[in-house]
């Protein structure tokens, strides 16, 4: 039996009308997704409220402050020296660099930042560069792991352990170093310290090469990073980005070069600059910066005043009893030194009234301290310009248009730390 069936063949206009109808159905409602504050890819406690259309982000609102401890308030209530341990806890991946930044800011207020003993300057530069390598290694390891390349993480953490050993030899602590003092250092480095760094540099060159081989030309890595979250030159400056994030966008600005402090003037180094400002460029800039830090460290190892063992007894602190503590021997045998020691411990370093801002090229960007002093041993107001905080403020503009799976990549490429962002 033959049956008759009606078949409706619609013309193209009708088909288009139907497609529009269906599409409206698919788009429907937008989904709001809370990412964090406890998410492995947020490297701490960052919360981002994402508005999603399917898998595409249409709006992003970063929410910071989960780690706020009121460091600026605390600083107003203690002496300058007492605040040094708090700086360890800002960017806890590079405490040595924070110590150097803070000490230099207070020394600028005192007007002695360019009169530091040369050995102190070299040791401080070496500390800052070791911290830079350490911080970039963690940033790279976590970045790669979030993107699926776990091996790199193991590799970089092995190397970071060695930097902790070096920091421990100098300061006695592995993480919270508090190695600097106002006007110098806590103590001189041990005699084998420079050799420790030389051995580390040799081993680290191999490891960095291996990480380079694993990632830089890795097809998956490049595909996920390239052309993602592009920050143009103008946008980077407008948003106040600093450090590798600013240089990744092609802005040639590095405080070590543009406003040289310590002994950076005597050292030969370049600055790494990206071209397009995508995630891949920011990654490349960090890789290159580690190599440049190695070069700076090598030069410092060779040029450090007093040599490896400091047989000529080069000082590491300004020999001024009103700024740095005198030796214990002298305190117990001389009246004047005893008075100095008493005054420094009870009232702190007597700073002049005035206001200064000092910006230090930290691994994460420009860590600045603004100190407003009314004279005496405590700051009236201390403001911390935290690079992570400012680098994060661009997220609201950067994330819309990305897929949700891109979020860990963008976050990893910005390399922030919440301890510093929230202060």
């Amino acid at each position, binding site marked *: 039996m033959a049956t008759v069936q009606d078949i409706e063949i619609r013309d193209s206009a009708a088909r288009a009308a139907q497609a529009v109808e269906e599409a409206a159905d698919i788009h429907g409602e937008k989904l709001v997704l809370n990412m964090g504050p406890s998410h492995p890819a947020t490297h701490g406690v960052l919360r981002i409220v994402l508005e999603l259309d399917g898998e595409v982000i249409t709006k992003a609102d970063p929410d*910071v402050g989960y780690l706020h401890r009121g460091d*600026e308030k605390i600083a107003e209530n203690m002496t300058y020296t007492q605040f040094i341990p708090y700086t360890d806890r800002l960017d806890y991946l590079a405490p040595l660099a924070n110590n150097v930044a803070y000490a230099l800011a207070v020394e600028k207020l005192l007007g002695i930042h360019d009169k530091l003993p040369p050995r102190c300057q070299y040791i401080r530069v070496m500390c800052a560069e070791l911290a830079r390598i350490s911080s970039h290694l963690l940033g790279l390891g976590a970045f790669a792991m979030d993107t699926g390349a776990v091996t790199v993480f193991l590799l970089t953490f092995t190397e970071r352990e060695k930097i902790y050993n070096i920091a421990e030899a100098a300061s006695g602590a592995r993480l919270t170093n508090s190695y600097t003092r106002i006007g110098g250092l806590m103590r001189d480095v041990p005699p084998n310290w420079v050799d420790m760094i030389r051995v580390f540099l040799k081993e680290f060159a191999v490891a960095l090469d291996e990480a380079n081989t694993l990632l830089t030309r890795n097809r998956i890595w490049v595909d996920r990073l390239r052309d993602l979250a592009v920050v143009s030159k103008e946008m980077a400056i*407008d948003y106040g980005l600093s450090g590798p994030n600013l240089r990744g966008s092609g802005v040639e600005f590095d405080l070590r070069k543009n406003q040289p402090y310590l002994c950076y003037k005597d050292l030969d180094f370049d600055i790494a600059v990206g071209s397009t400002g995508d995630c891949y460029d920011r990654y490349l800039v960090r890789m290159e910066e580690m190599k440049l830090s190695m070069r700076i460290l090598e030069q410092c190892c060779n040029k450090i005043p007093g040599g490896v063992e400091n047989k000529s007894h080069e000082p590491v602190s300004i020999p001024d009893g009103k700024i740095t503590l005198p030796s214990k021997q002298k305190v117990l045998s001389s009246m004047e030194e005893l008075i100095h020691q008493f005054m420094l411990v009870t009232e702190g370093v007597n700073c002049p009234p*005035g206001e200064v*801002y000092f910006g230090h090229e930290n691994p994460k960007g420009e860590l*600045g301290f603004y100190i*407003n002093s009314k004279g005496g041993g405590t700051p009236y107001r201390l403001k911390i310009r935290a690079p992570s905080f400012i680098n994060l403020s661009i997220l609201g503009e950067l994330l819309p248009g990305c897929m949700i799976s891109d979020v860990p990549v963008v976050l990893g490429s910005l390399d922030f730390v919440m301890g510093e962002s929230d202060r």
Partner: protein
Amino acid sequence: MSALESANKIKAKFGDLVAEPTEFRGEITVTIAAAEKIFDVCQFAKRSLGFDYLVDICSVDNYGEDPRWTVIYHLRGVASGHELRLKTNVSEEKSELPSVLPIWRTANWHEREVYDLMGIRFSGHSDLRRILMWEGYPYHPLRKDFPLAGKPTDLPGVAFTKVTPMEGGPFVTLPSSSDSMAREPRVRVPEGAEPAVSDQRLIDGKLK
């Protein structure tokens, strides 16, 4: 053009509004008498003097003095490397000055931070919310009259004012065939509204 020359240009342009630039440790500070002019000064500094990078916005509480607030802007020209500090005073009654967000987008979070911790408002800021403290927190902790030990907040529904309730579970979704709103223990019931019977069961803490 050095930073001092830039400061003098600002002085020449705005005249009596701007005090003589001061120098301390090689840093140039320019004080602007009228806070409501800060937008114009910043715009002039960016457009005509090349200060395209806003390093920082910071506030100081001169407690016991009038005007009480000082707001400080750190500017930098990326190409020239020059830095300039602009300062302006705001009285406590007013506690408001124009936002520089249209000039530098980085001002967004800086101004939110100043508002959050010091309680100075920025007119023209499109999204002036708290940033480090949580929404609904009643104080501005960086003010000098806020005690270092902090103040307890007893606002209902604000995080961290009470010990986390360990009782009153279950805190997991219940297995049942009802819809997710009914199964979700932390279901949001609008204040004053009578919770549904299924929610009541969960809020009371025990399965009936």
